Each structure stands twice: as C-alpha cells, then as structure tokens.
C-alpha cells in the first residue's frame, strides 16, 4: 500500500477544505486526509445511486422515559 506524497496531500487538502493548510497540519492529518478524500469521492459517486432513499432513522418520537445515555460528568 503506497502512501500519498506531501504534494498529493496538499492537493487533497486544498480540494477538501477549499484552502491551503500548513505543513504541520498536513503531517498531523496525513493518512486521515487520504481516507477523507476517498469518502468524499464515494459520496459524490453515490449521489446518483441513492434514488429516493431517506437517511437511516435519525429521529423518532421518543418513548416516555427515554433519555440520554449517560449523565454529564
């Protein structure tokens, strides 16, 4: 598995964020940036394939007593 070069990462960052990011941030984000570029490309590619599908459920009327998963520390 080959890793993207610094110049490829800079190009990816420009495309993803719409601006240049500094070398330190590039180094920090490194593999994550390449992953994010793959995700964005996939989502774009799938735009035409989703038809009338709604997102998986992000809301339903709560049952009485349903609450948060934990109390704040």
């Amino acid at each position: 598995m080959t890793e993207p070069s610094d110049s490829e990462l800079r190009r990816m960052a420009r495309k993803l964020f719409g601006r240049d990011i500094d070398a330190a941030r590039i180094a920090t984000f490194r593999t994550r940036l390449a992953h994010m570029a793959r995700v964005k490309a996939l989502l774009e590619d799938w735009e035409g394939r989703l038809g009338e599908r709604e997102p998986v459920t992000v809301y339903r009327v709560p049952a009485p007593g349903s609450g948060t998963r934990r109390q704040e520390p």
Partner: protein
Amino acid sequence: MTEPDLAFAGIAELAPRIAAGEVSPLALTEAALARIEAQDGALNAFMTVTADAAIEAARAAEAEIAAGRHRGPLHGVPLAVKDLFATKGVRTTGGSKLLGDWVPDHDAAAVERLKRAGAVLLGKTAMHELAYGTTSDNAHYGPVRNPWDAACHPGGSSGGSAAAVAAGLAFGALGSDTGCSIRQPAACCGIVGLKPTFGRVSKFGALPLSWSMDHVGPMTRGVADAAIMLQVLAGPDPRDPNCVGRAVPDYGFGLNGGIEGKRIALARGFFFADCDPEVATAVAAAAQTLGGLGAVVEEVELPEMEAAYLVGGMIIACEAAAYHAKSLRERPEAFSAELRASLELGGFYSAVDYLQAQRARRRITEAVLGAVQPFDAVLTPTSPVPATPIDDTPRHHGALRHRNTIPFNLTGLPAVSIPCGFTEAGLPIGLQIVGKAFDEAAILEIARAYERATDWRARRPAGAP
C-alpha cells in the same frame, strides 16, 4: 481442579459448581485478585481494581447461595468492566485525561444487569483513549500488552478487557464495539467477543463514541460463557432510545446441538484482500471444519463492502466530533494529539456529507440483508492481520484492523469472533461469524459447534501459570 485450571475455567463450567457450593465465590475472587496483582504490572489491563468491593460482593454472593438464593449462572462469578461504562462510586475515565477524575453517581445499564445477576466486579479495564482506536496503546496511561506476546498490542479499543480475560484475570468482561472494538481485540487475544445486534443491549451509561455505531457486548473465553453473559445483558431499556423491546430468547437452548444442514457463506473478495496468509489459511480451514460438521458452506461476495468500510468510518468520525465538540474546543490539551487530529478532521465533514452517508447506509444495509438472507451465517476473518509489536506496527494496519468488522456496525448485524488458530509466532487468529438481525442464537450455535470440534480454547498464553 488446580488453581490455574480454575482460573481458566469457563463460566458455564463454574456456574453449576458455584450453585452446588463446590466452588466458593470468595475463593474465586481472591484468586482472581491475586492473579491481577501478580500479572497486571506487566499487562496494564486494568485501570482500576476494586478489590474491597469485589471481596464484599463475593462474600454476599456466597452467603446468598448458601441460603438457597442462587440468582443464576453469573452469581459469584468475577468479571471485569471496560472503563467506559459508568460505575457508581468508581472512577470512569474512558481511557482519557478528559474524564480522568470522573466518579459517576450511577451505573451503566450493562453494569446494573451484571450486578443484579450477582456477578462480582473486579474493576475497570484499560482501553484506547475514548474508544477511538484499535491498539489500546494509550497516550495517557501507557499501552495494554497482549498476554500471548507482551511486545504486541492486544487490539482495541477494548484491549484491557481482552487481555484480562485471555490471561485468566477475569472470567469474562464487558466490552464496547463501534467499528471492531470487541471482536478485533478478542481475535488478537484468542478469546470470544460478541457484538450483538444494534439495539439488543442497552448502551445507557456507556460513554458514546458514535451513537449510531456503538454496541455493547460480552468478552469471554468460551462461547457458552458469551451466551450466558448475553442472556443477562440483553433486553429493553427505555433510557437508551435505540434499545428494542423484542423478547429475548434462551441463548443456551440448542447451543450444543449439531449444525447439519446449516447454510454458511464464506465471504471472499473484500474480506481476504491484503489478508495475512496465515490468517487466510486459518479461516479457510475453519470453514472446512464447519463443512465437516455437516454445514453447507458456499463462497460468496458481500456487496458494497468497500463503501460500508468508508461510510462507517466517516459516520464514526462525524458523530465522535459532534459528541466531543465542546470538550475539544474548551480543553484541547486533555486529548492526545492523535485523537485530537481524528476529531478535528471529523468536524470538517458537512451536514450534507453526513446525511448522504446515512442515505448510503440505508442502501448498503438493504444490499447486505439481501445477500445474507439465504444463509444462517457468514464467515470472514475477524481482522485481516494478527497483533503486531506495539513499537513496530505497520502503518497500513491502521486501516486494516477494523476493515472486516465495521460493515456490521454500519448494518447493525450481530457478529461474534472466536479463536480459529495461531500464527507461527504464536499469536491468535479470529474467525468472525455474522448472523441475521437479532439472531445471535444462530451464530452462537455455529460458534459453539466449531469450538467443540477444535482445541484452540485449551491453549493458554505462555506467561500464564
């Protein structure tokens, strides 16, 4: 049974002996605490050991059982709890500095259920920081070490739970799994790890990483033990909005039956790409073993797996960024640099991206459910790669360790990892068995049949007495 034999006994073997008064919960607990004392300096599997509370709980269990009030197969059994489950009066860090001194005033639902069943809780196990990682190499608290080779990681994020169970420090443990975090550490440490169907086990009181991808489940040395723990953990809970009200079947029923005629798919393609050859060989051999037991094994390719891997990771990144947004803004220094980078990047996705991903998730799930429908179960390698040295982990393993498991967090289908062999270097290999929604019983039956036909479970880490 000698003391080491007892330490490595299964819950299913111990339970009737505890009920009959032949094995003392107090003696079991004292022995477990002694093993933790002797071995955990090297393993770093525990964040907090609650010795006094464990002794007290063991004494209470022993008295109740002697009085004829045996609660069930977990009564008097020493277990451990991943440190992301809230425990009343006991520090709960999530493996983070952020929550380094949080002492909850309540128990997580899973902890409540274990306590109600009479289990003895030994303490809280170490983990990857805030469950966002796959090695349990924790920047704040040091790495957890693999009992099979202390130079290697135990997997993650539930690495402490896996290491504790594998080393005979606890008879079972609670884990959580957002992309691989029960199954992959189970595979790395040679134990059983069950991620139930989404909604089967309440997540109330479990520190979230990703609301729609998190699952809670048991980690044990044997399949029957996982069934016993799931029996206690499963069931409705209105405090978790995703927890369902479905009836819970008897997971012990049929567990020791045959698997003749079961249709089992071996998923090729995606799951075997970049797979370590020893892992690929072991998993193919496991499929053959199941065929030899009478199952009808066919090779398939599950659809949209690459998309499932990418979309799953993206949803985790977005939800984790949302959950930790306030803390990241106000206390960035409380996060490791690695985790901070992951969370910051998750925040760069747009709302449109997130919703498109959740639409893609629906399409992927439809495709996977259709492909799985004709089968009782689907087999894959749990992780394409075994554990590697903590200080020398190939960078590309970061993308592989959760690759084969995350599709089933995305779809919510149940999946169990069981030991199916060892590498030449002596590191465990895991077989993942995936089932239909809410049919944990089927995958446990197949897992148990495989376990009975092989002797992987009899092996113990070399360092373990």
